[in-house]
């Protein structure tokens, strides 16, 4: 999709058989990877330096709202406007980025890790293990997420950890199924059989031979998963299972923005654009990683 990695494709003189070492520096550090890393660094910087952007908890009910209590738009005093409680949207954005990046990264990693482990195990071990794991995955897909979220919310104390646990519990089944399908295809290409034939132990087959081929799928899936996690946090706020107010997160900024869409669209645009850019940075890094690895370099033989 976001294959802005065109400049990262190997130059005509190179083929897929080159090793990393023989490739040019441009191929080792594709532009996408650099661009993505820079963007991510910017956001990480904002997250770390959040207090420099203002106080996200400071309500200005009299000065920060119109006389009928509506949020203010962009102005010199408030570069990104104010929110429904007269707080600086810029400050809330900075702190929201901080909260949401933690949520996005951690829950993304955990949900994909769990999902990939299940998918790999099911596809590799076959037999009863596969049957059980795939049924568990079906249950994971079919379980109503609202119910599960409310239950987990009732059992844990409010906070970041709870949000991460809920997202992991609800998001792992998708990658599990995708990975499972991919492993089955890889099996068919003989990877597993040949490795077994030379006597490689089971787990190392999974790790050494299957994982690298499953990896691109996960890298593709990952940024979308992370973005969904951030947006999903808005849903959790509705259920009372998200980040507690008044802490800012991109998710609960989105839910505030949705109610104000007719009169204060900036409240929705600001977090949405932030999510967009953060996702883009993940996508670019993913594309860059894929382009870096000559095994995964794909040149279309149709010549386009």
């Amino acid at each position, binding site marked *: *999709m*976001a*294959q*802005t990695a*065109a400049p990262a494709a190997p130059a005509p003189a190179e083929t*897929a058989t080159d090793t990393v070492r023989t490739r040019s520096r441009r191929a080792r550090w594709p532009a996408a990877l650099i661009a993505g890393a820079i963007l991510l660094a910017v956001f990480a910087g904002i997250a770390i330096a959040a207090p420099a952007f203002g106080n996200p908890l400071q309500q200005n009910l009299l000065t920060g709202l119109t006389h009928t209590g509506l949020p203010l738009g962009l102005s010199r005093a408030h570069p990104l406007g104010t929110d429904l409680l007269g707080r600086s949207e810029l400050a809330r954005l900075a702190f929201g980025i901080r909260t949401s990046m933690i949520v996005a990264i951690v829950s993304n990693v955990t949900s994909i890790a769990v999902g990939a482990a299940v998918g790999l195990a*099911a596809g590799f071990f*076959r*037999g009863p293990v*596969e*049957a059980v794991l*795939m*049924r568990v995955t*079906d*249950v994971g*897909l*079919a*379980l*109503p997420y*609202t*119910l*599960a979220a*409310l*239950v987990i919310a*009732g*059992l844990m104390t409010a906070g970041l950890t709870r949000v991460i646990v809920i997202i992991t519990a609800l998001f792992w089944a*998708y990658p599990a*199924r*995708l990975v499972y*399908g*991919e492993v*089955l*295809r890889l*099996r*068919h*290409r003989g990877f597993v059989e040949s490795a077994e034939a030379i006597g490689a132990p089971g787990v190392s087959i999974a790790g050494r031979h299957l994982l690298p081929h499953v990896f*691109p*799928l996960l890298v*593709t*899936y990952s940024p*979308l998963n992370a*973005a969904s996690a951030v*947006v999903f946090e*808005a849903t959790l706020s509705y259920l009372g299972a998200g980040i507690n107010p008044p802490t800012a997160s991109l998710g609960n900024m989105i839910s505030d923005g*949705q109610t104000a*869409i007719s009169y204060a669209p900036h409240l*929705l645009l600001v977090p*949405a*654009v932030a999510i*967009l850019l953060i*996702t*883009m940075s993940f*996508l670019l890094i993913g594309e860059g990683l894929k382009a870096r690895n000559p095994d995964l*370099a*794909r*040149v*279309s*033989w*149709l010549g*386009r």
Partner: protein
Amino acid sequence: MARTLIRRLGFGVIAVLGVAVLSFLLEFVVPGDPARAIAPRAQSAAVLANIRIQLHLNQPVIIQFLDYFGDLFRGNLGTSYVQRQSVTSLIGPRLATTGWLALAGVIAEVILGGGLGILATLYPRVRAAVGAVNLTLLALPQFVVGLLLLLLFGFKLHMAPVTGGAGLPEIVLPALTLGLVGAPWYAQIVADQMADSLASAYVRTAVAKGLPDRYILWRHVLRNVLSPAITMIGMDLGAYLSGVVTVEVVFGWPGIGLLAVNSLQNLDRPVVMGTVIVGAVAVVFFNLVADVLRMYVDPRTREEQA
């Protein structure tokens, strides 16, 4: 193949049961008291106690469990606590309605997403633009996309009905919303798989043999793309049939989504269980269909599957 199918069906039933049991038990863990939820707050204790008796809530969990599943095996989904109607009569008519929306939504997202992915792969010059479109769609919540479409096509341009209903004109915008929101995923997967197979030795051989591009795309590349796409379609259909509340509520589409959400909020357990079971059956069924289709389309995944 038939044996596989039957085995898969059997496992599917087990999965549905698993979901049902788990959901039932979870409902007792969810904080809240159904009696208090269906009778407004501030009931005298005696009134609440009576309601609990009438709803059999005063019995131990295990008895309620056996009662519920006993009824379930006889085809009785129970009676709604809140609406005093049989759960079947509440869910039945709306299930088909959601089904149509699910189908239309999947068609929309496959066409839009697949289209975007193919465009991005075959025409590198628009790749960046396609990427931007995808990202925007991804960062916008469903509600916003739906509302914007409704505003534009319904209220401003008067091209779409705005007052809800379940007919053909009414399905366009909600399906389009689902399609737009789901498109980035299909675009990504399709683009990836296409790039993968376009770089493969098989295609290299085909090009070397002088086969026309279109033939190569159709016969080989598409096959590769279909496989994960079918997996996702299966998951999507199952997920949609579990209820797409946001879209249904923005467009007034009378599906089961609103029913599912309200019943959970009201702790209307029979209806919650009804929608969960329906959703679970849908998920299992469509995943099964997806697996079968995939085995047919991509023989490499045809080997014995659990």
